């Protein structure tokens, strides 16, 4: 075995150790201070470096594109989450904006209404199972503030009347309730009748009783409270005539009414504590007027 083949590994190892040392020395030097040997080393190492970089960029570029796709997926997920969050936020803003609009309308209503009103927030709704129909609403005013039978209104129209108390809350009987009755007048011709709830479970509807057959009414006519009996304030929109059924016999005609208020979307309401031109009665048991005693209300 020759000397060279015997120590081949050692020579190679030493070369592998020394060459990079010279590479490093030459590359770290200021070009102005380079020796001819350094220049040779740099000249040799530069194409090698260029080749290595080209391979790295080619393979690494393809890999990074793949990783970029993974990153894109993560980015996509993040953006989807962000989108959901913004949608929720937007929903909240929309809700707030809607609330502000409602409150503005309520304020206008309160200012134009001649009597005394107390604002209340709807805190609960009685719903018919499976029908999603509201049968009563609960508001955050109690016996200390309002009295049974007081009309409840919104800027859309008449909601109903205060019915029962639960501490500092009270239930409102809606105009569509079977036991509710309200004196109304047809705006177009002044025909008068009594609006009574039908209590149907699948829709909000009322009927007008005691409307004479001779009174010319038609679908779409608006009904307002007549103020008769002094229980409900005069001129509050109640609903629109949906159907008119006039038989060839009898004194009265059958008229169904679609309420003006969407009971499913009630958020804030007013309780009429004093009618226009009427002095507000003292609140509390015995102090509040007993409005259900006359002029419509509850049967």
């Amino acid at each position: 075995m020759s000397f060279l083949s015997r120590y081949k590994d050692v020579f190679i190892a030493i070369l592998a150790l020394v060459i990079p040392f010279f590479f490093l020395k030459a590359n770290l030097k200021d070009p102005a201070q380079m020796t001819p040997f350094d220049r040779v080393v740099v000249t040799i190492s530069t194409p090698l470096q260029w080749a290595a970089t080209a391979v790295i960029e080619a393979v690494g570029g393809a890999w990074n594109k793949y990783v970029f796709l993974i990153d894109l997926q993560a980015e996509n997920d993040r953006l989807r989450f962000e989108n959901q969050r913004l949608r929720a936020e937007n929903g909240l803003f929309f809700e707030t904006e809607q609330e502000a609009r409602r409150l503005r309308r309520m304020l206008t209503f309160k200012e134009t209404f001649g009597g005394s009103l107390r604002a209340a927030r709807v805190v609960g709704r009685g719903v018919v199972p499976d029908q999603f129909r509201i049968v009563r609403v609960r508001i955050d005013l109690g016996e200390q503030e309002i009295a049974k039978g007081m009309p409840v209104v919104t800027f859309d129209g008449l909601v109903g009347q205060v019915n029962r108390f639960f501490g500092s809350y009270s239930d409102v009987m809606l105009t569509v309730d079977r036991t509710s009755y309200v004196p109304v007048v047809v705006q177009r011709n002044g025909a008068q009748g009594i609006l009574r709830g039908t209590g149907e479970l699948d829709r909000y509807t009322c009927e007008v009783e005691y409307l004479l057959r001779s009174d010319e009414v038609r679908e779409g006519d608006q009904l307002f409270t007549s103020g008769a009996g002094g229980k409900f304030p005069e001129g509050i929109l109640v609903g629109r005539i949906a159907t008119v059924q006039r038989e060839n016999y009898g004194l009265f005609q059958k008229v169904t009414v679609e309420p003006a208020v969407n009971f499913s979307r009630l958020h804030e309401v007013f309780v009429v504590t004093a009618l226009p031109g009427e002095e507000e009665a003292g609140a509390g048991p015995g102090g509040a007027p007993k409005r259900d005693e006359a002029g419509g209300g509850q049967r």
Partner: protein
Amino acid sequence: MKTASIIALGFLLLIMQSTIAVFIPLEVFVPNAALAVVIYMGLHSYSAGYGAVVSFVIGYLMDTFAGSPLGMYTFVAVAVFLLSRTAALRLFLKGWIFEIALTLAWATVAGVLGLLVRGLFDQDFRSLLTHLKIVFFKAAATAVVAPLVFRAMAWLERVTAKRKAEGKVFRG
């Protein structure tokens, strides 16, 4: 075939570690998996010449990837290979705990060597001392991935040996 496979593995690991580096918030915790390949060769029965040449190539690739002065990692890789081979600590290489421990030790040596080489040329050892902590963290990160790299290397060895044996049988 075997040489090309080892270099390809080192190359692949470098690409992966440079990609992973983007997702790891602290650069010090990015493992130097390619160095684990060099340490593996040092701890196993690779001849000095063969291992030094492969370490040279892997170190050269590390320099190119890292953007460090050309020759720095090349020198460190070859030096670590030769040192670990000379120390012959492969006798203790039993199970992944020892693989981690030995990789931690040699990766730390590699880091310190790198600092020394830089210091030698920059003539500024004091500022490099502050990097010692980083060296240890990086070595620890490298040690954690070492068992995986070692398994990959062992698998490569088995596959290339099998191919070689099949080739011999085929040739007759």
